[in-house]
Structure formats: C-alpha cells, structure tokens
C-alpha cells in the first residue's frame, strides 16, 4: 500500500489507473457480487440519486413555479383512489402542487445538503485528525479533548444549537441559500469527531513507518507528507464512516427541517414536506405526508444497508 518512491518527482503519472485496476480486482468487488442485499441497496441508492439529480427534467411540473400551480387541482388523491387525475400520479397538496414532483425536488435538496454536510464534516474531521495524529503533544490533547466533550452530546442537539446560535448571530433574517449553508455547517460541526478519531489513530500508526521517515529525510514538508503520503493510506475507514454518515446527515437535515429550524417552506426538503404535510393527516389527505415519508425512509434505509455492508466487507474481523 505504501507509496515507496519519492512521489514528489512525478506525482501525476502513477497511481490513478493502477488504483482503478486494483479496485476491479479487489475483494471488495467480489464481496459485493456475492451479497444480494448489498446489490439491492446499491441499486436503490443509485436510483434515488438519479431521481434526485434528474428532478427538473423528469418531474411532471416545477412545484415551485407558482404559474404552474392550479388551485383547481388542490388536494387530489393518488391516481388509484377514484378521484385521482392523470398527470398527478400520487396526488396533489392544498395548493395544487404535484406531490411526486415535490418529492423529487425535495429528495434533491436532502441529498445535496446530506452530501455537502458529509463533505464538510469529513474535511474538518480528516484535517484535525491528520494534524492531531502527526503533531502529537498539546495540539493532539487539545483537539481530542474537544472531541471527547462533543461526543458526550448527541449530534442532533449540537446541530440544533449551531443552528440556533447562528440564527441569533444573524438576527434570523436569511435567504434560502444562506439557510442551506447554515444547515451544512451545522451538520459538518456535529459529525466531524468520528473522522478525526479514526484518522488520528491511523496516522499515529503510519507516521512511524519507513516511507514517512524517508519522506522526512529527503526534506518534504509536513503538509506534503500528510496530504500526499499519509492521507492515501488512511482513507479506507473514512469511506465507511462517510457512507454511514450520509444517512445520518440526511436524517439530521430532515429532523431540523421537521422541527422548523431547517430549510424554509419556499425551498422544501423531504423533512420540510413532512412538516407541512403533517397538518393534513387529520383531514384525510394522507398522501401529502406519506410519500415524502416513504421516500425519506427508503433513501435512508438503502444508504444504511450499503454502509453496513461496506463496513463488514472492509473489516472482515467484525464478522
């Protein structure tokens, strides 16, 4: 695994193609081909991502263009329930908005926030983990003490507090993009600890190996050694955490939106859709909340199953 040659000389040429070839030949792929559950979860995840990415092109209408909404079409039930009408396969909400389109667009937002949140928490966590593991001493102690303290509180609470503090700081007046950025930041700050601890542990093992000593000997700076030489060797577990955390990030965003501190109703994610749809549960319009709920449950379950499989496949000791 270790990059043996001093890679500072020809960095761009070597690794990428061989890494792909290695991946195609790996135990990971073999294990994937054996597990039906993993393949089903992967297929479902890809399907959800495709639906979300293609939402603007495959949705029957743009649910946030007021010109396309007809109040005449309000509260239509799903197509199989008698009164349903053709383009609205799973019904409409109180403003005549197509629920299917709203779900596709909402899924898009949920996935964008989830992926960005995982990216931010990964960046923070990997960065701090690398520094803590490599530097050691008081830097390590300081970072890990903060991590320990944060780990005693549930992530959702931290995300709520980050959200609340930021709102207090900005006075509560924000446009939709600022709110997306805020939620991404809240998720990033809630989930970095796991990455930091894992990466730190791996770095402490790696930094005593020969290739790192060799790198130091030829005068490479600490940032170069960390990012080009140690980082590639500690990423395995990070992918597992990232997959599982994607599900957690999506749940966190949905929960914040459901609590009314997440994405606004003008730009609804699945959580916001469930929040607004919840009002209609008692008047019998169950489809307004049921389908966003199903989409969220399916999305999270698929990603979770994929993450579980990935963890077991990469870590045979756990089985």
């Amino acid at each position, binding site marked *: 695994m270790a990059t043996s040659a001093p890679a500072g000389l020809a960095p761009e040429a070597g690794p990428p193609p061989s890494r792909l070839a290695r991946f195609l030949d790996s135990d990971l792929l073999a294990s994937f081909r054996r597990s039906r559950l993993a393949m089903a979860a992967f297929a479902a995840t890809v399907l959800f991502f495709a639906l979300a990415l293609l939402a603007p092109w495959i949705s029957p209408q743009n649910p946030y263009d007021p010109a396309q909404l007809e109040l005449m079409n309000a509260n239509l039930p799903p197509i199989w329930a008698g009164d349903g009408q053709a383009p609205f396969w799973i019904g409409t909400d109180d403003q005549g908005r197509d629920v299917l389109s709203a779900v596709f667009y909402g899924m898009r937002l949920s996935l964008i926030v989830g992926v960005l949140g995982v990216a931010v928490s990964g960046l923070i966590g990997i960065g701090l983990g690398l520094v803590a593991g490599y530097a050691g001493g008081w830097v390590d102690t300081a970072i890990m003490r903060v991590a320990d*303290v944060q780990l005693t509180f549930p992530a959702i*609470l931290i995300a709520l*507090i980050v959200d*609340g503090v930021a709102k207090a700081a900005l*006075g509560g007046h924000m446009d939709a993009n600022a709110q997306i950025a805020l939620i991404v930041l809240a998720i990033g700050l809630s989930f970095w600890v796991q990455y930091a601890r894992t990466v730190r542990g791996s770095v402490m093992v790696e930094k005593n190996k020969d290739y790192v000593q060799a790198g130091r000997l030829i005068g490479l700076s600490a940032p170069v050694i960390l990012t080009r030489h140690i980082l590639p060797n500690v990423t395995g577990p990070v992918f597992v955490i990232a997959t599982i955390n994607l599900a957690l990030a999506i749940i966190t965003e949905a*929960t914040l939106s*459901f*609590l009314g*501190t997440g994405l606004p109703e003008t730009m609804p994610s699945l959580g916001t859709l469930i929040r607004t749809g919840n009002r209609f*549960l008692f008047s019998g319009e169950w489809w307004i909340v049921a389908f966003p709920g199903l989409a969220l449950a399916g999305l999270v379950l698929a990603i979770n199953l994929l993450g579980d499989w990935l963890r077991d496949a990469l870590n045979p000791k756990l089985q």
Partner: protein
Amino acid sequence: MLAFILRRVLQSVGVLLAVGLIAFAMFRFAGDPVNQLVAPDTPYAERLQIRQSLGLDDPVLVQFARYAGNALRGRFGNSYQFRQPVSTLLAERMPATLELALCATVFALVVGILMGVYSALHRDGALAKLLQAVSLVGVSLPTFLIGILLIFLFSVTLGWLPSYGRGDTVRLGWWTTGFLTASGLRALVLPSITLGLFQMTLIMRLVRAEMLEVLRTDYIRFARARGLTTRSIHFGHALKNTLVPVITVAGLQLGSIIAFSIITETVFQWPGMGLLFVQAVQNVDVPIMAAYLLLVALIFVSINLVVDLLYTVVDPRLRLSVRRAA
C-alpha cells in the same frame, strides 16, 4: 481513588464552564440588548446610562462571571417571547419532559429485555428473525417519522389514543403529573413508544448478544445438568448476568432520551422543555436557548460522572488500574 474522583469532577466543571461560555457568547452574538429595551428614538446619553446600569460596559470576563453566578442561582433572565423568567418557564415544563423520559425508559427496558431474551432463546424462530428485521428498520427510521406513523395508525385511523398534549394533569405542589388521570395516561402511550423505540432496539440487541454469550458458558451447562427448570436457568441465572451492561447502557442513554425528547415533543405537541427549546430556536429567544443548553449539559455531565464513578465501585479491576494510574 480520591485523586481520580477529584480529576473527573474538575473535568466536568471544565466542560460546564465551556458550555457556559458558549451560552454566554450567544447573548453577545444576538446584538445590542439595549435596542430591545428602548424606543428607537432614545437619545444616546440615555442609552449609555442604560448600558451602564445593566453592566454592559464592564470587561467581558466580569460579565461572564456575573452570568455564571446568576446561572448558578437559577437566574437566567427573562424570555424574549414570553416576558417571564426562564427559570419559571423551565420549571413549569420540566415535569412533562421527565415523566415522558421515565415512561420511555421503562418501555425500552421492559420490552427490550423481553424481546432480547425471546430472540436469544428462539434464535432461529420466525418471530425472532422478524424482530431482528424490524429492529433494523426501526433504527434506520428518523424518530419523527415513527411518531407520525404511530399517530396515523392509532389516532387517525383507529382513534384509540390522543395524538397531542398531555391530557388532564393533576397538580402536586409545583409538580404537574399525568400519571393520575386516565386521559393523562392515555396521552403518554404514543410519545413514550416513539421516544423509547431506538433505545428499545438497542437494549434488545444487547440482551440478545449477551444472552447468547452467557448460554454457552459452563455454569449454564452445569445448571442444566443439575436438573434445574429451564425457567430458572434462563431467568435466574442467564438473564441476571446480562443485566450489568444493560443497566449501564440504559443509564448512559438517559441523557440521549432527554435530548431526543425535543423531536418527540414537537411531533406530539408535548408541553415539555424540548418543545420550549425548539420554539426558542425558531424565535431566536436567546435566554431560553442558553438556559436549556446549560441544563442539558448539566444533565449529561452528571450522568457521565455518576456512571464513571459507579464503574469503579462496581468493577474492582477498574479500581485497581485507576490506583495504578494515579
């Protein structure tokens, strides 16, 4: 031993101070408090006087010390939305949250242990496999979705149980309880299940794994050889030895239950501290947010401290290593 306790207590105080600093910083982020107190056309000199009388001109450290001192005496200022002392609001809402948390914990323990024992004893039975699958799905689903599902099933469709509020409560001194009326008890059912479901699956998996482990040991085999009844082997000998980790986990999860009651209380419009906090976040009501933050931090830190100290009391091996380390 004393050094260890002292160090852990000092650490806990450090955490609380850090959380207090964050809570205090929230007020400073939220803008000039004088603006919220006076009319927009108040002259500068008058504003300056108010600033001085509120102590806002003092050094930051002095202000923080004053805030911490007030917080220690339970004074968190007035809520912006309710115009009432935060401590009064929290005290009013606390019984609702604690009763809900208690019911959720009892539900999680009782049902979780029963299901765990069953699925360990009938490992290959259809029902046990079903329980495992359901627990996997249950862990994946967000809490609020489970709550909505329960409301849809038992309130909207079947009409058996209320979907929001606490029902009728009885006042005992400053404590209001829902345990003494039929409607109060009925109102507790759905929120408790929603809140306790995650912990229930956790306990079920733990008990199952521990039971499978214990059932393989020699003393169970000897108990069987001695001709004891299966009932007394399973419950008197096997289950008893699985309970130590279960109680630890349940204790540590108590903090999570109180934190997650934020979500459950919102779904069921349960008038507890969590709902108060969510409304405070929505309305940028800083005094409530700060006080809730401190309260939750206090609960978490105390639980962790007590569990850590109990460990050393319960497990002699730990005590030894602590003594060696200290």
